[in-house]
């Protein structure tokens, strides 16, 4: 009789030294230690904050947000006066930040794409000009550009008083737009009764134009027949709206700014500070986006262009139909981070007195209420939220254009 005794492998009990000497556990040990240290560091900072606040007989409280702000803001997208709360003032600032960030992102993208594509141009002069643009704007701090543009506006544009008198030194462009060193005054549309219909017709025309272009593409793919795109789109956009506009008896008027008292009254004032900030952020970020675009285009194999040419496509169409759609996959991720940079850089607004969130909540409110920690925390939270939202939205878009592997 044979008995086979299969000895179970010796069960090695867990010993403490294995935490360091056993590779299975070692990494956990070090990560755990690192985590404890990080926690201790933050606990120390927070404790230090609380202790020092207590030593100065202060506390953390957000009650001040309900108090009247007491100061005025020159650019308001929502109604505001100095009797409203600090919270409302902060909200005015938030909208101003979003306004300049939104405008900046659009113009930076347009500039960046144009400069990026043209930098690869075969035309020597155009290529070098774009290279000069990119290098010049990318390598000078954006704050300097903001100040340069602001000061150029302040000193080179005519003063408001130059428009005054019998024979003014300056006059308005088309009698409607005034370029001054306080900003640009443009006419403001006046919405009278019936204007809603005109707007609705215009919106409907946009939908119609999009539909027409889709239709043209479909016809092209199905039959190979090319429908004209340019002039029908324009006609769809303009003709019905104009017709309704005159049928309804011209319900949309224009309020032209005119010089009354110290300033131009009426119309819309695009402040010098907004223009300086907007332009500077656009050209600065545009230079970075141009590089991203160039990198994206160069990442597409040369063979794609050659294949397109051999099919008889012209350079314009090769770029817009073959190269750019593929390049987008490379371009979008870095451009997202440029948008984030632009939004965060807009906090330099205070240099030109543009009342963004840093200027209202992080500037005057902080200073007048003395609630520095609370204000800075709120600022951090705001920029964090905005940045995460922008990248979330753009990541959705990025996923949409991503290469679909089937």
């Amino acid at each position: 009789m044979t008995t086979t005794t299969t000895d179970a492998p010796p069960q090695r009990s867990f010993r403490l030294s294995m935490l360091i000497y056993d590779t299975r556990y070692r990494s956990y040990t070090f990560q755990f230690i690192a985590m404890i240290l990080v926690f201790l560091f933050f606990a120390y900072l927070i404790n230090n904050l609380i202790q020092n606040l207590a030593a100065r007989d202060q506390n953390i409280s957000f009650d001040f947000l309900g108090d009247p702000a007491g100061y005025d803001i020159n650019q308001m997208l929502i109604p505001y006066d100095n009797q409203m709360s600090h919270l409302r003032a902060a909200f005015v600032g938030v909208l101003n930040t979003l306004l300049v960030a939104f405008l900046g992102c659009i113009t930076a993208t347009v500039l960046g794409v144009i400069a990026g594509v043209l930098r690869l141009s075969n035309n020597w002069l155009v290529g070098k000009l774009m290279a000069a643009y990119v290098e010049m704007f990318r390598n000078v701090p954006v704050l300097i550009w903001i100040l340069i543009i602001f000061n150029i506006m302040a000193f080179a544009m005519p003063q408001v008083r130059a428009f005054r008198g019998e024979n003014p030194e300056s006059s308005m462009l088309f009698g409607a737009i005034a370029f001054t060193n306080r900003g640009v005054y443009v006419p403001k549309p006046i919405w009278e009764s019936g204007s809603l219909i005109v707007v609705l017709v215009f919106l409907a025309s946009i939908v119609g134009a999009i539909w027409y272009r889709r239709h043209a593409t479909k016809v092209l793919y199905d039959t190979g027949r090319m429908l004209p795109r340019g002039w029908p789109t324009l006609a769809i956009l303009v003709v019905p709206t104009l017709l309704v506009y005159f049928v309804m008896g011209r319900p949309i008027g224009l309020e032209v700014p005119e010089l009354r008292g110290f300033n131009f009254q009426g119309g819309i004032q695009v402040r010098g500070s907004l223009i300086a900030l907007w332009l500077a952020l656009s050209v600065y970020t545009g230079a970075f986006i141009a590089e991203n675009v160039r990198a994206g285009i160069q990442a597409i194999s040369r063979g794609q262009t050659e294949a397109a040419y051999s099919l008889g496509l012209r350079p314009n169409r090769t770029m817009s139909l073959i190269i750019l759609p593929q390049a987008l996959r490379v371009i979008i991720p870095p451009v997202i981070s440029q948008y984030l940079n632009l939004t965060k850089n807009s906090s330099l607004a205070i240099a030109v007195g543009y009342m963004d969130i840093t200027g209202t909540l992080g500037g005057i409110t902080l200073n007048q209420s003395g609630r520095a920690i609370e204000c800075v925390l709120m600022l951090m939270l705001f920029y964090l939220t905005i940045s995460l939202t922008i990248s979330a939205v753009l990541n959705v878009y990025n996923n949409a254009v991503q290469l679909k592997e089937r």
Partner: protein
Amino acid sequence: MRTSVVLGAVTVAGLTAGIASAATLDDVQARGVLNCGVNTGLVGFANPDANGEWQGFDVGVCRAVAAAVLGDPMAVNFVSTTGKTRFTALASGEIDVLARNTTWTFSRDVDLKLDFVGVNYYDGQGFMAPRDLGVTSAKELDGATVCIQTGTTTELNLADFFRSNNMAYEPVPIETNAESQQQYLAGTCDVFTTDASGLAATRATFENPGDHVILPEIISKEPLGPVVRHGDNEWADIVRWTLNALIAAEELGITSANIEELSAGTNNPEINRILGTEGSMGEMLGLDADFAKRAIMAGGNYGELFERFIGESTPIGLSRGLNAQWTDGGLLYAPPFR
């Protein structure tokens, strides 16, 4: 607690450090130099001269305190602060005294936990406009664009003034005095507002000061004075009585010219007490007997400082007005040295 100062600076905005020690006097004496917060550059009050040496009326207060505490009026490290950074600098311990045309208000004293030790200039907010604008009164400013220094009381006074007079205006907030001066001269704003003394000081630096008028209205009370942190009463006492010594010295006729002679002993017991030949006031403050004598010798008494930096013989040309001694019909009234 020393290390907590370093690490504390890492915390949110680094505002909470600096409670390192309640005894500012010990810190200053150990350091051997006084950190004094002043304006970024306002002629007459605090401005570096051609040699890079700070000069001015507020600077004079700093030098007097340094002389009283350290025995050397030049042992001052001047830290230039903007309207926005000044209180943070003081609260965080970056500076020991703030002498920067700072208005004494309830909320700053109580809510911001600062201590105003006195008033060294009674001021009020005014407006300056180009002469060719034809404005003669602040009540005519409806619709004007106004340059203001942000982070100051002027911002709030301005809002109140225009609201109570039912007028509209457009504020152009600017960070420093120099920038607002530029913007005003470029015409991006119609009028410039700040404390009347600041207007005079700014106008004095213009190429053609005569082309600009200071409007007659004074729309606020702005008592300007040196500030210290709340909670260190010994240090507050030192700064307060150094300032009072300068004011009392003018009242009693102690000047930098006759101080040596007077400190040999006089018939006036108050002069003797100030100059330390009688009583032990210096010791009570934790200093030596000569502290007030050194403070007065640093730049002269209050009147001498005023005349030298901002008085009628200077380009700034401010008259004493409210800032005359109470015996001359002004508001300066130092409590008795007793």
